């Protein structure tokens, strides 16, 4: 399984010289499974570049949406493969008692917010609610579970061979909870992240910023570290960077995160801040993962 970060920013695209290294595109992670199947985790503005990288080849891919906040779907109408008739796209996402996944996404892909309507997309696109039980896509087994965020929100676990990826980009597991004291099965998302080869997790706020954002659906650094430690993932990437955090700020934040991670007993180098275009290869039949240069 190959994993590439196409958008690491949270909330709103934040392009500019001050965010050029960690990136300004919003959430999107490309995953290539062992059998060649393609997944996109979320469709923030980062999916535009993923689409360009796919080229003109006929494509079949699955887009797994964690939720429908704009920073996770904004790139859909700028995803070039969606405008080619030979492309087949399956969009998965959380169910809602209010309306179907298609109808909720159509609120964005429709006038006046969009120049095109869902029915006008030339590709073969279908919409599916994530099942409660594990299902298969290509060579992978996929599991989705509701996690603590605002509105219906999922986290995902993707297992392909012996490797596993947990993706929980928007997550506030410590809302009203003490992550150090709770039993494992009472911690939001922990079942998805347990012993994953790679955990991509919300890391939006510093501890100093969090008190002004309690209940907004995101984690402070202390929460991200505590969650990662409880999860026991081999490697953790902090993700969904706050749009106010420049590269210089994130460099310092990453240093602090690394020091605190080691102080908690974490393996040196096994926790990092996600940077746009960073790639990870998770061998199908090996216990360790190796990071490839961006």
């Amino acid at each position, binding site marked *: 399984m190959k994993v590439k970060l196409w958008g690491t920013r949270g909330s709103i695209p934040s392009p500019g010289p001050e965010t050029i290294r960690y990136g300004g595109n919003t959430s999107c992670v490309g995953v290539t499974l062992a059998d060649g199947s393609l997944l996109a985790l979320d469709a923030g503005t980062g999916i535009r570049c993923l689409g360009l990288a796919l080229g003109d080849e006929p494509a079949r891919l699955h887009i797994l949406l964690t939720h429908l906040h704009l920073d996770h779907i904004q790139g859909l109408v700028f995803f070039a493969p969606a405008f080619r008739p030979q492309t087949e796209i399956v969009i998965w996402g959380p169910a809602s008692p209010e309306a179907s996944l298609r109808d909720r996404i159509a609120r964005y892909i429709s006038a006046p917010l969009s120049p095109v309507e869902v029915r006008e997309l030339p590709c073969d696109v279908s919409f599916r609610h994530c099942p409660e039980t594990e299902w298969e896509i290509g060579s992978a087994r996929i599991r989705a579970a509701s996690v603590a965020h605002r509105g219906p929100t999922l986290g995902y676990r993707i297992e392909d061979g012996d490797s596993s990826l947990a993706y929980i980009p928007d997550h506030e597991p410590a809302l*009203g*909870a003490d992550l150090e004291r709770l039993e*494992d099965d009472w*911690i939001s998302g*922990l*079942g998805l992240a347990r012993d994953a080869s790679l955990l991509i997790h919300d890391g939006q706020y510093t501890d100093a910023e969090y008190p002004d954002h309690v209940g907004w659906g995101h984690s402070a650094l202390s929460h991200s570290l505590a969650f990662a430690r409880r999860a026991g993932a081999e490697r953790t990437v902090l993700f969904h960077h706050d749009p106010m955090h420049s590269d210089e700020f994130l460099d310092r934040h990453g240093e602090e995160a690394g020091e605190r991670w080691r102080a908690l007993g974490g393996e040196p180098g096994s926790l990092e801040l996600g940077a746009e275009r960073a790639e990870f290869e998770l061998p199908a039949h090996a216990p360790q993962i190796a990071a490839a240069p961006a």
Partner: protein
Amino acid sequence: MTQKPLELILARNLMSALSTPAFLVDEGGVLVFYNEAAGMMLGKRFEELGTVGPDEWGQMFGPFDEEGEPIPYDDLPLVSAVRDGRPAHAEYEIHSADGTSHEVEVSAFPILTAHGSQGGIAIFWPTAMNGNGARPA
């Protein structure tokens, strides 16, 4: 590892912050949590007791009717809330670990989700007649 349904997790988090005694049961009627206020009323913290099956917690704490007779399990507000998916309310007496009786009103409601019933919550209100509802056993 099987994670509890998110709705139960969030309910527990909310209940942990309340000063009103509250019980949380899963879809099978197992008492999976009660908060500190309930622990004070019962004379035993949840951490001391742990999860309790539906047949056991009635025997431990009651409730009892006006004649002091145990109320049948199927008639408990929390049980009907989970079973029928409807809110329920009742007044009765419960006993804490040291034998103190408490007259309480109980409001119970189900936790209904897109995936069906995930359990129920019962909130205990001391009856207004004697302040905190407590009286010697």
